[in-house]
């Protein structure tokens, strides 16, 4: 199964709920297109909920980084929510914990944007 993405608005924070796999090919490009479109539409506070993402490969990691750069270049913030142990391990191995702000709890993640 490729990645499925949906968005919802919580105050002025746009939450992107992702499920499935973010891997080379369709999954990674789907995510890239959504982040680019949201940034272009003026959404500056993005919270990516990876709670139901089962698998991310190096291409998927690359897309997270690319999304982070896109949002930052538009003057916004992209934060991560609900990482499972395997995705946390990936961020540790790649040292991207030093780049991304990661939250376990949605309410506190939303508050962190204020």
């Amino acid at each position, binding site marked *: 199964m490729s990645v499925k993405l949906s968005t919802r608005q919580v105050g002025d924070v746009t939450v992107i709920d992702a499920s499935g796999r973010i891997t080379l090919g369709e999954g990674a490009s789907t995510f890239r297109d959504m982040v680019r479109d949201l940034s272009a539409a003026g959404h500056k506070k993005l919270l990516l909920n990876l709670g139901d993402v089962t698998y991310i*490969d*190096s291409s998927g990691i690359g*897309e997270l*980084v690319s999304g982070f750069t896109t949002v930052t270049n538009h003057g916004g913030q992209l934060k991560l929510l609900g990482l499972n142990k395997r995705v946390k391990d990936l961020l540790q191995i790649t040292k991207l914990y030093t780049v991304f702000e990661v939250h376990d709890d949605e309410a506190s993640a939303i508050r962190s944007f204020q």
Partner: protein
Amino acid sequence: MSAMAENQSGEVQTMEVLLDSTLESVDEAESIVLRIAGEAGVEEDDLHALGMAVREAAVNAVVHGNRYNARKKVHLNVSRTPDQLSITIGDEGEGFEQKSIPDPLAPDNLLRQSGRGLLLIRAFVDEFELRPRQPRGTEVRLVKYLAKAS
């Protein structure tokens, strides 16, 4: 399409598979290795890690090595002994210098979009070797140690 050959001799079981240069072959390589690793008693978390290493290596072979060229094949060899599982994934590409890949952990490179595949492979297997493949191309050898049955 893939071509497959299996051989069992003494305590060594080997399988050789020729895969097309497509992303479907990445799934096939992962599936073959995970089946053999599962039969060898590798547990779930280690299976996930091994599968990830195999996917990254297969993606490198298809995308960077063979560049999706339909005339070029990906060579998968899986060898199982009582102690370890050895997986070799080779391509028919132009080859490359490992040191030409920027260190993905260097602060200046953290925000690069690509270049983390070999890092992840190294992290997820017990031994890793990258070498030229004869007569052409590159191959990686991944080794996963097997726990002794009690």
